[in-house]
């Protein structure tokens, strides 16, 4: 590890920290329906949409109709995206003349972009037409992120309101999230990415002649615009197969800082929005601190593991001062690779600027573990916030008991119903991640798709299902995922991770919003102090992590100890 590396990490974290408050407070204004500096331009547009769609913006929904609206919206999105992918050969903006996608791949991809996972079982530059990328994938990059924000707002309002029955209007929240938050910042980001060197063109590709005289086809397209929302909406589905390791997606060190900043800033700012809307900005900062603890420790762990290097290679005479550079871009280095890897897995973004398959066993384990903890650190746009609140509910439940009071969070009593629903949501993670992995691990046809044997191969399986269930979308890589088995089961895992998780969470919101707000007293456990931060960190580690320990022991941990005795896979 070098001072320079840490300075870069601190620089980017500092940038994030100064941005989250203004962005968070701005979003609080937007979603409370107050005027912002963009209102004069966007308000007529916004209300135009409502008139067109026949939405009455003042008519609020209870938790069930809010959730149903979200599901109907997602189903419609799935149908349209599936159709686009299956028919792309007949649709415009297909300069390279790519064929229609096969059914299992189209199904997997449609689910993947719908659930904000952006798992890619294909290589973008050789599969997707510009039309599919822009009309299909990029549209869902916006809408899936806006859906996440809307759900998080519904949960936020459950705590902000007392003795109420409605949680807001789904259509209004999605519209505002897209118009006021996602679009303006994405446009700015796209311009900056163009400035750093990303292409933004409707040309399909150009042919170049290399020095050796060979012909090389260089894929081009509307990269910068897709890149902006890919990062900012924690989508992670790259234009190119190598994602943010590709120089057109992530052109320079500066572009890389911005990529990390833009993927973490929105999810983190939403924590502040939550605090502001429930009437305690401090509460928002407490949640930011929890996320900060995991992110910083995670970065440190990955950075240390990578900088330590591979003892087997070191023994062969490779310069140990470089650490493990396998699968990394020289222009980013270890520090920025470690930071990108931890942020993208803590976030459920899934963009990568290095192949996680090539991280050291312990470095790879950290990224896998960040996903398995439930994608709440700070998690996907919106989904991270409501996931974190589920853990907070469990944490205050234990804490409340230990101080001798019926547990309450932000003045709302946490009772059997909330605990039941929270456990139901939390249960989805091991159910999908571990069950699919266990079945896949004993199927010879699946094991044959693995790039590596032994514990490393097992990690590849675990990572794939964890990534899909957590709606992360990053691949450990090393396995050939474009098979009917992988496409189908991963799609199911993605649906479970998004919808089976969020329905109980919305039911919690529906129950919380009806409750009276109890006033705080000295006997109430304060949830905006460091003790709560520590407790929540512990609960996330224990409730979120303990069940994965045996699986991790058989994957990266045993790989690490085997590596120490010079065995590789």
């Amino acid at each position, binding site marked *: 590890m070098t001072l320079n590396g840490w300075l870069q990490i601190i620089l980017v974290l500092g940038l994030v920290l100064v941005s989250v408050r203004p962005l968070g407070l701005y979003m609080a204004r937007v979603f409370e329906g107050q005027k912002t500096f963009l209102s004069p331009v966007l308000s007529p547009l916004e209300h135009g949409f409502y008139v067109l769609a026949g939405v009455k913006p003042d008519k609020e929904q209870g938790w069930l109709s809010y959730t149903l609206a979200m599901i109907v919206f997602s189903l419609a999105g799935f149908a349209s995206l599936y159709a686009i992918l299956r028919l792309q050969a007949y649709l415009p903006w297909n300069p390279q003349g790519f064929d229609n996608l096969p059914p299992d791949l189209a199904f997997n991809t449609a689910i993947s972009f719908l659930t904000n996972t952006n798992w890619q079982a294909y290589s973008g530059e050789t599969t997707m037409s510009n039309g599919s990328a822009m009309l299909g994938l990029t549209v869902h990059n916006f809408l899936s992120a806006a859906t996440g924000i809307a759900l998080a707002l519904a949960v936020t309002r459950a705590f902000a309101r007392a003795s109420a029955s409605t949680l807001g209007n789904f259509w209004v929240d999605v519209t505002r999230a897209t118009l006021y938050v996602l679009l303006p910042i994405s446009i700015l980001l796209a311009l900056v990415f163009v400035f750093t060197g990303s292409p933004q063109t409707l040309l399909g590709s150009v042919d170049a002649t290399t020095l050796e005289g060979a012909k090389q086809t260089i894929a081009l397209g509307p990269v910068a615009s897709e890149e902006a929302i890919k990062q900012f909406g924690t989508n992670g589905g790259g234009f190119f197969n190598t994602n943010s390791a590709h120089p057109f997606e992530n052109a320079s060190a500066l572009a890389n800082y911005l990529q990390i900043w833009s993927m973490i800033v929105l999810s983190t700012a939403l924590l502040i929005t939550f605090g502001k809307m429930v009437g305690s900005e401090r509460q928002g900062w407490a949640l930011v601190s929890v996320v900060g603890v995991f992110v910083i420790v995670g970065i440190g762990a990955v950075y240390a593991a990578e900088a330590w290097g591979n003892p087997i290679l070191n023994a062969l005479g490779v310069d140990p001062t470089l650490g493990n550079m396998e699968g990394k871009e020289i222009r980013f280095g270890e520090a920025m690779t470690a930071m990108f890897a931890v942020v993208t897995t803590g976030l459920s973004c899934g963009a990568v600027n290095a192949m996680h398959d090539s991280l050291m066993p312990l470095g790879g384990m950290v990224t896998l573990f960040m996903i398995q903890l439930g994608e709440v650190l700070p998690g996907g746009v919106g989904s991270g916030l409501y996931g974190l609140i589920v853990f907070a509910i469990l944490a205050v439940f*234990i*804490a*409340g*008991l*230990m*101080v*001798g*009071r*019926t547990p309450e969070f932000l*003045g709302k009593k*946490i*009772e*059997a119903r*909330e*605990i*039941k629903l929270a*456990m139901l949501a*939390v*249960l989805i993670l*091991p*159910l999908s991640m*571990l*069950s699919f*992995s*266990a*079945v896949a*691990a*004993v199927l010879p046809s699946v*094991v044959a798709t693995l790039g590596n044997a*032994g*514990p490393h191969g*097992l990690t590849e*399986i675990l990572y794939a299902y964890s990534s899909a269930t957590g709606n992360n979308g990053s691949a450990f890589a090393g396995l050939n995922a474009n098979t009917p088995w992988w496409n189908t089961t991963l799609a199911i895992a993605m649906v479970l991770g998004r919808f089976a998780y969020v329905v109980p969470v919305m039911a919690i919101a529906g129950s919380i919003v009806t409750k*009276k*707000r*109890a*006033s705080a*007293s*000295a*006997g*109430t*456990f*304060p949830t905006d102090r460091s*003790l709560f931060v520590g*407790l929540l960190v*512990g609960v996330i580690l*224990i*409730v979120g992590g*303990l*069940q*994965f*320990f*045996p*699986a991790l*022991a*058989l994957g990266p*941990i*045993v790989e690490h*100890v*085997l590596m120490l005795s010079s065995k590789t896979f």
Partner: protein
Amino acid sequence: MSLSNMSHDAKPMKLLDGGILATAAIDAFKKLNPRELARNPVIFVTEVVAALVTLLWAKDLANGSGTPVFSGQIAAWLWFTVLFATFAEAIAEGRGKAQAASLRATRSDAEAKLLTDGTAKGYPGKAWKTISALNLKVGDIVLVEPGDLIPSDGEIIEGVASVNESAITGESAPVIREAGGDRSAVTGGTTVLSDWIKVRITAAPGSTFIDRMIALVEGAERQKTPNELALSVLLAGLTLIFLIAVVTLYGLAEYSNTALSVVVLVALLVTLIPTTIGGLLSAIGIAGMDRLIRFNVLATSGRAVEAAGDVDTLLLDKTGTITFGNRMASEFIPVEGVTPRSLAETVLMSSLADQTPEGRSIVALARSEYGLIEPDLTGKQAEIIPFAAQTRMSGIDVDGRSIRKGAVDQVLRFVGLESASAPSDFRASVDRISRSGGTPLAVAENGRLMGLIHLKDVVKPGIKERFAALRAMGIKTVMITGDNPLTAAAIATEAGVDDFLAEATPEDKLRFIRKEQTGGRLVAMCGDGTNDAPALAQADVGVAMQTGTQAAREAGNMVDLDSDPTKLIEIVEIGKQLLMTRGSLTTFSIANDVAKYFAILPALFIVTYPELGALNVMHLASPQSAILSAVIFNALIIIALIPLALRGVRYRPVGAAALLGRNLAIYGVGGLIVPFIGIKAIDLLVAALHLV
């Protein structure tokens, strides 16, 4: 209640009594019935897998295959885990049953004297017939005479009697019960000592106060309380999560070329699921009720006990709770020209024969403050002037001295002064005393105004500290009084309550409770009168006094058999203790899992991946001994924690954050460390005894 005894001690009862233990051991086996155990998901799962491992062990024995010595021991310890859990519950119930048995003795074969004409007034003579108490109907009117057991709960409609209520309260001093007013309720099973009363029966057989008490202490009507339910759900969820983790491990191990046996997977499962808290959960709940009962408080539901822990606002009656209820002398104020000592000497003389509490307090103050000794009146011509409503003065005429003390205006008239012409320093003192909520008594000797005695409602010593402790717990105390606001404010300040409700009518109390509840606060109060009933019913925790009326006792959700209002504070602590014990043991139980992973995981994969031995940080002797030791530890920890579950985690009135920090350090960090030590110790023993 004595001055020094501000906090109450529970009736002593040995935590673990030999007889109870023996009965509990038998009951523990009866509770193995799966239908009953299904209420407790964690232990139910343990029982199911224990049965499974037993079958596998039998198969191993029959086929001569596998490792029957190992699987047999695992099976045995799994059954012990279940048995220890049922044993814990049986002990907790056993303590209640022992108390119920003594209560039941008072109820058996009582007879009632049913009046043939209930409407006739006066002593009925022999106009009654004997029937069994079990055949009494609500509305029947019975006669109870000295030596008779009151056959059922009822209300006195005629007569007054002294009643021994020790059967319920444990207090042998008789109490007076009379028709009309707030002391008209009588309880079945208590005994009339003198005089006679006519009682209208208000409870059907089987639903009397004693019946309900028996049901409560026996836990027969025990339902899971809301919070216990929520915790059960959490534990069931964790059990499911670990079930998934263990079942899927089979597939992951298969991939890694390790065939895991069902026995070791079961061992891993049982050590991971929260058996410790799962096994002790119902015992904690029962013990919480039991603690209340030993404080002589009966709660009609566990829900009320939990609510007590959540109380935000405590309504306390001033008289009897905060103050002694009778006025006491606190200072002597001479008028100009009289020395304090001569005034003290005069008032001492005036009160020598005064046997009222006020009079005695004056003597006591004169002795303690001025070191005076009581003059001997024997042989002297002394005429005692007793207090009379007309004169509103009392006094003494002795040795040519004529001393009077009494209401200020009367004494002034006695010395021939108009109010306006009294000395100005005297008038100022009268004003000051009135403003502070006290009562001024004027003193005169031989027609000369001497000074004033300041009588005040004395706040119980130590009560201020208790209110401070309550404040630290986050509980607001509100004093209820019929006094005027001025007096109330003065006493409120002195006692250190947070707020007061002066000139309070029953409607005011009700309104105040509703207002607090609308603000999201839980309110506790105690009361005894019929007019308290609506407020008792409205309060989240309503503690009725046993001496109170039937209406009050029905309205509250707790009854204090000692009729001591300050006990609300202990009730709150017991409620908190109940939740804290659950929370702390849950944390402990989950924290234990870390050490168990380190014991079992390397043992499972030692053949395929000997390098995983690096995780065997405890250096356990062999894979089998490691697994067995973890399972044994998991079972024994239940037994080890039974006393804590029954006694409860100690509550300290410090802020919530401090309390949490402390409990996390003890049960969280302790829960991480203890099993490392425990499993290692058991492993040494297992290895030394060559058990596997």
